[in-house]
């Protein structure tokens, strides 16, 4: 009785082991519908953009020559990168201490700090940009406060600093969360150890804690930078003619001028920049990640 039961169990286990050995090859097919959707609504459309950039109106690289020869385009391209760099820098400056604070406070304060990061997501993206129009406009909240303090108002709406402020607020959570998730795992006893060996608190922090937190910083920075490059709505609503970014130029070429070739070429430049950055950053993040795990 026991013997047959055992045998039955063993054969069932064997069978499931057999099945699971076969699953790897079969399991990939479960992703087929998702891959199909991506092929139809992602790969094919992007393919068309690339295709048109080389063929519309004539076959060749004319659209790219035009793009890089035009001073206006070069200025906008440069500005797009400068704005992305500013947004990344300002986000980092705001996020690093904030994420650090999240790791050292008590449970309730931490909950409040996390809520402050998540609540902005509950407001619709377009509405959030509207809020920044209200805040930054000439008669807006910030200028009212400045006037109240007896200071002279500053022009924020339709300027680059205004765009950077609005974009930073939208993207800040993407910087805070990765940094926090790495900092959470840092063993603070390492700091105590450094201090017990005579290091000053700031030195211990800079030489031990900061390097260990870098994987989170890299991850956050690359996400924020890449998302900034492609930002469209916030710069379009907060910016003015002198703060146009690449996305708006693409939109203008395609929708207003019906110039698919030139718009496509701009899009391809944006796309290539994004993927080159990702490819450059990927090993950086991965390497740092494993090394920090080993050290910790």
């Amino acid at each position, binding site marked *: 009785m026991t013997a047959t039961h055992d045998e039955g*169990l063993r054969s069932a*286990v064997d069978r499931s082991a057999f*099945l699971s050995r076969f*699953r*790897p090859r079969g*399991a*990939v*097919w*479960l*992703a087929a*519908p*998702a*891959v199909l*959707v*991506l092929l139809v*609504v*992602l790969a*094919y*459309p*992007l393919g*068309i*953009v690339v295709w*048109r950039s080389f063929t519309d109106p004539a076959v060749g690289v004319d659209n790219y020559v035009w793009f890089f020869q035009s001073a206006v385009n070069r200025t906008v391209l440069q500005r797009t990168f400068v704005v992305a760099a500013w947004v990344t820098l300002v986000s980092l400056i*705001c996020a690093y*201490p*904030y994420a650090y*604070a999240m790791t*050292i406070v008590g449970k309730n304060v931490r909950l409040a700090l996390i809520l*402050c*990061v998540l*609540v*902005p997501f*509950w*407001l*619709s*993206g*377009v*509405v*959030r940009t509207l*809020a920044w*129009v*209200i*805040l930054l406009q000439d*008669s*807006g*909240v910030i200028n*009212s406060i400045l006037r109240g303090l007896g200071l002279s108002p500053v022009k924020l709406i339709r300027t680059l600093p205004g765009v950077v402020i609005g974009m930073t607020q939208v993207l800040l959570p993407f910087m805070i969360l990765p940094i926090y998730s790495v900092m959470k795992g840092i063993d603070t006893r390492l700091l105590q150890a450094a201090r017990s060996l005579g290091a000053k*608190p700031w030195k211990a922090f800079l030489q031990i804690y900061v390097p260990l937190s870098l994987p989170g910083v890299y991850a956050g920075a690359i996400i924020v930078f*890449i998302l900034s490059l*492609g930002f469209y*709505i916030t710069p379009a*609503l907060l910016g003015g003619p002198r703060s146009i970014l690449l*996305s708006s130029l*693409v*939109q203008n070429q395609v929708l207003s001028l019906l110039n*698919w070739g030139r*718009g496509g070429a701009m*899009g391809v430049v*944006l796309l290539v920049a*994004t993927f080159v950055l990702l490819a450059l950053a990927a090993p950086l993040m991965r390497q740092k990640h494993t090394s920090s795990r080993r050290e910790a």
Partner: protein
Amino acid sequence: MPSFSRILLGLFCLLVAILLLAPTLVVIPMSFNGNKSLAFPPVGFSWQWYENFFSNPDWTTSFSNSLIVALIVAVVATVIGTLAAFGVSRAAARTGGLLRALLITPMVVPGVVLAIGIYAVYLDTHLVGTVTGFVLAHTMLAIPFVLIAVQASLEVFDRRLETAASSLGAGRLTVFRTVTLPLILPGVLSGALFAFITSFDEIIVALFITSPYLKTLPVQIYTSITRDADPTVAAVGTLLFIATSLIIIAGLLLGMRRGRT
């Protein structure tokens, strides 16, 4: 850490928190504005912008359009994304990693580039301004979020439970229905919520593939902002904010109850 730098850190965090919350803090009072203006602070008090949202067909139709599209996307993207999550986490490590990288690309492709591509395809296939067109595009954008959410719960899922169930004679479908699905349900549900929100809030692709006959709520909000200073937008923002808060709080409470029992 010396107390002085602690105070400094506290003040700094307060400023960052204000920066994060500023838009919310501005939009809510603005929605009760007595005047048709977006100047801050609002003057007087009225419910008229809420009334306008519920009575003006521009707003009600775009709201129901968004709701329909987002509900379909939530179902379709959740099914497709959950299947993909199984594929990714059960395939050989290398294939799985590649597949995952491929499936989350929609998150990093610049919105406008994607939008002009989809617009080009939809112009050829007559999908501009159709529910099918919106659902397809939004499903693609939502798949990464479902994939990430479900994969997270699959990672902590003990596969020996499946082996145990099948050793007791359960077929694969029965195992999935009675063992796997109930255990990964929180991940699947949060994936569905993310998919819904992704679609409901999507604006860039929507701006290109919209038509006068089919506008979604974000498109309506955007055109309203660019056209005039209408506080109805603030009322819509407040309503959506409250709705999202309620859903998330309900989800958290539910999760806590499940965790306790």
